């Protein structure tokens, strides 16, 4: 059976209706629904308490470094869990593979220590 591009127009219409329905309902509900606004309603939601100060203040770059280091070791641990579960099945082959993986991560750790990223006091 042969099909031409014309045969796919119903699918295009279907897509248009699906997208159009979503856009129309969001737009119309905002237009027709009840709304009230006040200075208290328009304030930021801070669990019901007035917000204090400005969130856009500079803070120590060390927090960022700690966050990045966390991601590194987090991923390491995520890979070590399945390895630990399948330790026997994977055998020596798995040991080698994980050894290479850990070696790469340890290089990252040594680099961090060399760059003094872990010295949080200074």
């Amino acid at each position, binding site marked *: 059976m042969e099909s031409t591009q014309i045969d796919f127009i119903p699918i295009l219409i279907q897509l248009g209706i699906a997208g159009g329905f979503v856009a129309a309902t969001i737009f119309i509900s905002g237009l027709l*629904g*009840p709304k*009230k606004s*006040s200075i*208290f*309603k328009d*304030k930021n*939601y801070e669990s*019901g*308490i007035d917000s204090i100060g400005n969130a856009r203040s500079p803070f120590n770059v060390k927090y960022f470094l700690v966050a990045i280091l966390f991601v590194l070791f987090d991923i390491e641990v995520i890979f070590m869990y399945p390895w630990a579960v399948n330790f026997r099945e994977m055998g020596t082959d798995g040991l080698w593979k994980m050894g290479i993986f850990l070696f790469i991560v340890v290089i990252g750790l040594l680099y961090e220590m060399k760059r003094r990223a872990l010295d949080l006091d200074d």
Partner: protein
Amino acid sequence: MEQKIKTVQAPDGIEGPGFFATKLSEVVGLARANSLWPMPFATSCCGIEFMATMGSTYDLGRFGSERLSYSPRQADMLMVMGTISKKFAPVIRRIYEQMAEPKWVMAVGACASSGGIFDTYSVLQGIDKIIPVDIYVPGCPPRPEQILDGILKLQEIVKKEDIRRRGTEEYDKLLKSYNIK
């Protein structure tokens, strides 16, 4: 075959081949009532019962309220569960103010409804002192069945509410009487 899954019944209307006509307010009420997103405000033991209500045994999600909203912006009903001290009153009022219209309030348990056993200087004697409450659930704390019953009763209120109610002068007066801006 007996149908085990209960779906929402269509409102009264004129039915014919290929069309169905009914009042807009009933359709809107039906849609609102069956998708009430709760904003849980749990301060004590009623909140623990609410956790059980959301759990698999009781499962509030069966009634269209599975999506808890931890921001008042998307919430439809404020569920106040637990003792509210007077110092906490401005917080609860601010959350109510920041909820989008239309909004409903449910006072769960004796403390939220009336202060409960805490008839002291520091405890608010019922949240209806600061915000309008639509439904009260008794109990200290109420069982999850009671909370479910309260939500089903609230759904009846929501279904019957006029779609123009939130724009009326009476509603403005009601809010003004609670000093809500």
